[in-house]
């Protein structure tokens, strides 16, 4: 299995796609966090809750890019046809999916740490520039980084599952973007009693905040881990099953 994981990681670093995605993520975080930190009223951004809601963008963006990288580890292979030599070398296809899940866990972990770390650093710099004190505690930052890393790992698995189920690259990418950026924010904004159980919101519960929401409206971190792990298991399991059952075009 370690051979297969190594092969999957090699696939990730031997095209520019993953690097470009990370650059896009960095640019997006820079833009979104600076816009919020510099434009929100001093009253709003001076409180711990206001500051948490801004770092919550790191969680949302980590979830998005970890799942995109996971999904594209399959859909890019289907799109270019390399899935055929991959399955010829390893015809027990569930082992290929398992390797993609493990490789995705590593990239998801890195994405989670990078996204949350960048978000926190840019917010701190923006607050310092406005002369506003940071209200977040060391505990907040630890939860943010650890929770972001965990969310990255689990969202990468959700992405691998979605990629294996949908197979079409554009469909998988658009679906993940629409769900995480549009549907989830609408859900938690309008029906928070249900929206807090959605995957992106549970990632926020683990990290302490998600895009525009702090812990008050989210489930507990423990329940968040359980729910997000369940989502990851369902999508990854369904993706693995369909991959072994369906013909390869």
């Amino acid at each position, binding site marked *: 299995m370690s*051979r*297969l994981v*190594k*092969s999957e990681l*090699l*696939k990730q670093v*031997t*095209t*520019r*796609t993953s690097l470009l995605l990370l650059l896009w993520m960095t640019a997006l975080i820079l833009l979104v966090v600076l816009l919020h930190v510099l434009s929100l009223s001093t009253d709003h951004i001076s409180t711990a809750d206001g500051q948490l809601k801004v770092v919550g963008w790191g969680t949302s963006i980590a979830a998005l890019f970890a799942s995109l990288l996971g999904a594209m580890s399959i859909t*890019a*292979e289907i799109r*270019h*046809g*390399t*899935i*055929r*030599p*991959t*399955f*010829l*070398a*390893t*015809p*027990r296809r569930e082992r290929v999916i398992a390797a993609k899940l493990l490789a995705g866990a590593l990239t998801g972990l890195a994405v989670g740490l990078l996204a949350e770390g960048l978000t926190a650093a840019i917010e701190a710099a923006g607050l310092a520039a406005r002369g506003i004190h940071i209200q977040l505690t060391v505990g907040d930052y630890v939860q943010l980084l650890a929770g972001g890393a965990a969310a990255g790992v689990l969202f990468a698995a959700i992405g691998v599952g979605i990629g294996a189920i949908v197979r079409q690259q554009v469909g998988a990418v658009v679906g993940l973007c629409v769900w995480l950026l549009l549907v989830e924010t609408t859900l938690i904004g309008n029906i928070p009693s249900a929206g807090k159980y959605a995957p992106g919101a549970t990632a926020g519960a683990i990290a302490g905040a998600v895009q525009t929401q702090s812990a008050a409206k989210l489930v507990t971190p423990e329940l968040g881990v359980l729910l997000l792990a369940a989502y990851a298991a369902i999508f990854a399991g369904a993706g693995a099953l369909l991959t072994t059952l369906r*013909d*390869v075009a």
Partner: protein
Amino acid sequence: MQDPQRDPLTAEGAFHDAAAPAAPAVTVRRLSKRYGDVAAVDGLTFTLERGTITGFLGPNGAGKTTTLRLLLGLAEPTAGEALVFGHRYRELDQPSRRVGALLESGDFDPGRSGRNHLLTLAVATGVGYDRVEELLELVELVRAADRAVRTYSLGMRQRLGLAAALLGDPELLVLDEPANGLDPAGIAWLRGFLHRFAADGRTVLISSHVLAEVAQTVHAALIINGGRLVGELELDELQDGARSLETAYLELTGGLA
């Protein structure tokens, strides 16, 4: 106890041969694949003995590529079976060490270099980096190896695909339209390579719809049309090889009508 000096490849081969003593390289029995109402492959039966080069001939849409996909475990048959060395492909332990395949679809990520394409497969197969370099030299891609595949000509892609098929030093080569994009020198090189490959007792199955390319290469030809086997020819039975093969092919596939 296993002898630690024993080559694991040989040991595995021995295991497979024990499970299926002297099984033919390829056994296809009453193989069918339906897509809705369309039968892409319809009750196909043939075997390939080891050490032979066999042409798999038929017009476009005859079911050649579908048959190869079924043989390689990429698709599941609707009925019948397709076995390599007596086993379903998906049940082989180290398939790349027994079967190498070059598919017509040209399966490369255009942004990845030729060398890295081979490396990702070599790592998954458990083949050393020196084998990758050896194959890059064999297919004369050393100088282009670090360029992205999107800059390769069709012939270079075919040679890269052949290198990928050979990574595990297989006993059976399955080639789908291998001469696509090769220049005359490349075709002559491929023919010489396949003859040496088969002279080792190894087996080749070449699918093609371009008869002239295979007529001088193969020992035997299977001709299929509409998913069915319509002819099976030994090339040495035919006088005046290429022309006779063409006549037989056109008669059998109804192309002269």
